[in-house]
């Protein structure tokens, strides 16, 4: 009794039992019947190298029970492409149908990454991005705006279909919703500075000086400062700001900005609203050869505002020729 053993459609197939290769055959174990039966038929169709509609049904069934089974996904993708060849059907239509099924599955299994690999394999065969694709990704981000698989898929998609122009406003909407979304900050960098980058070798990315557009940098510095004012104790935009300024080789143009948040940096740090601002201020002071002032900011970090990283702040003091402080 079973879904396959009793089906007319599968009567020609003899399922192949599990063999785990070890010394103890596992035939006797109480594997749940449904999964076990489906896997037996899967082993049998792969042994015959069968690519058919019923293989799509079978793999869909197994994936519904175990979406992480990597071999099933590979076989399914292959079957879709093989079937299209034999049927002469429209590949575009076949893929869109598959994507629709994937959408629901992805929304259910947020941490699964095989789904995204499969999606990318399908998308590689399309010349244009399906009109619903970005709306679907927005649904994914509504569930988890930092999902790493979805982000790396999205970056691949942006490069594949040259979606650069609409991405910048998109990062703005994500940051308006959550200014602490580090993935969105990274994506903003990718969109602005990754566009002219060779997608395979990455040449041109990072601070190699390939793209230094002063107007763009000015605009981004202003944008980032505004976002920091909304939540000064937020490391993502501070890192972003440092990344921008590194392209110009100096932090000091934003020293006055950092001073808005450091509080009584000459005293006990009363009124300090951001450890990142203190850190930034210390680097500005070091750049201006004001070792004592820099050292005082680092001392406040080590003692009061970020004592868990005391050793790091003391290392920074050491670089300025100053001694370590205790927490």
């Amino acid at each position: 009794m079973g879904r396959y053993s009793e089906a007319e459609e599968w009567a020609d197939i003899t399922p192949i039992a599990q063999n785990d290769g070890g010394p103890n055959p596992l035939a006797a174990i109480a594997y749940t019947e449904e999964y076990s039966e489906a896997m037996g038929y899967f082993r049998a169709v792969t042994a015959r190298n069968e690519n058919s509609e019923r293989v799509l049904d079978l793999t869909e069934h197994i994936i519904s029970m175990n979406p992480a089974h990597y071999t099933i996904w590979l076989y399914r993708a292959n079957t879709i492409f093989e079937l299209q060849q034999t049927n002469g059907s429209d590949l575009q239509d076949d893929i869109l149908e598959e994507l629709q099924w994937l959408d629901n599955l992805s929304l259910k299994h947020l941490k699964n990454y095989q789904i995204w690999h499969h999606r990318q394999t399908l998308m590689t065969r399309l010349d244009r991005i399906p009109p619903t694709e970005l709306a679907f990704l927005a649904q994914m981000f509504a569930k988890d705006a930092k999902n790493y698989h979805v982000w790396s898929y999205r970056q691949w998609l942006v490069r594949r279909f040259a979606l650069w122009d609409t991405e910048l406003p998109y990062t703005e909407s994500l940051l308006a919703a959550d200014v602490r979304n580090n993935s969105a900050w990274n994506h903003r960098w990718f969109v602005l500075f990754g566009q002219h980058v060779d997608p395979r070798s990455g040449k041109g990315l990072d601070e190699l000086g390939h793209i230094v557009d002063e107007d763009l940098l000015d605009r981004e510095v202003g944008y980032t400062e505004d976002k920091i004012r909304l939540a000064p104790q937020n490391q993502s935009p501070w890192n972003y700001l440092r990344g921008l300024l590194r392209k110009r080789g100096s932090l000091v143009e934003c020293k006055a900005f950092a001073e808005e948040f450091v509080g009584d940096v000459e005293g006990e740090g009363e009124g300090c609203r951001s450890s990142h601002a203190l850190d930034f201020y210390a680097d500005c002071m070091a750049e201006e050869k004001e070792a004592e002032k820099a050292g005082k900011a680092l001392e406040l970090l080590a003692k009061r505002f970020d004592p868990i990283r005391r050793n790091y702040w003391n290392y920074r003091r050491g670089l300025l020729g100053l001694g370590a402080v205790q927490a």
Partner: protein
Amino acid sequence: MSLVSGPGRAQVAGGNLPNELQLAVEKHVKYIQSLDTRKDELEYWLTEHLRLNGVYWGLTALHLLGHPDALPRHETVEFVLSCQHDNGGFGPAPGHDPHMLYTVSAVQILVTVDALDELEKRGKTGREGVGRYIAQLQDRDDGSFAGDEWGETDTRFLFGALNALSLMRLLSYIDVTKAVAYVQACANFDGGYGVSPGAESHAGQIFVCVGALAIADRLDLVDKDRLGSWLSERQLNNGGLNGRPEKLEDVCYSWWVMSSLAMIGKLGWIDKDKLSKFILQCQDPELGGMADRPGDAVDVFHTVFGIAGLSLIGYPGLKPVDPIYCMPLEVVNRAVGR
């Protein structure tokens, strides 16, 4: 090795009783040994695609705990060999397709139990065949590695290739210079590294990128102060480390962050006492095993990274771990001839 989670749970609260701040060595050994007796649970089968990785995790944990013989060596080697394909690559279990990640685990296991000669004698291919399987997954134009013939690239695969090939002393099979250049292309503005050029910095990806550079002997390319600062910022007030800004702490991320710090010589930038206490709070002191964070169900994946983490920060009684390979230091020293 089963990837089934539970039965235990990391303790929920406190962690202040003296016995809770001790590593429950015997309990963890028993827990790992018990995993393979759980074949009557569906989850055992649903996690079959991770079986070989699971053996590596369990075996490594046992070695670090000082119980290298707690898993039967012969069966372990038999199982690994049964996962090999004619092309030299390994799948996670018999009947599964070969992939870089499983091939790396296979090599790590065989090296740990000093059984590369068994591969030579009884494998579908010898070690050179395994090396060729890995080498053909490199894109000779950009230096990146695919995980399998389907061509998906990920810096994890690149690290895996350097890891396994160096353990077999076959690094000459690949273009290491190009692999290093690809890792460089994954460096980000914040000092970290991502899964591909332009992708967000992530502790797991930093571990593989820095590990690859360490194996290639090119740590000189890392901006150690900037990366070390970003990594040390991952420590939260509860002592645990997260993998990205604004994410929760987790034992596995704790390992990736601290091993990366160790590789660049900055392990002192985190508070080791607080971290050690956090990891110990993630163990189930009664039934054994560790979870991602206190209160969650234990599993073998977090168990090995918790124990490896404790070893790296010098918890007494544990065998020293190699931060690059996450294997016993003495095993790695023997394999690579340090």
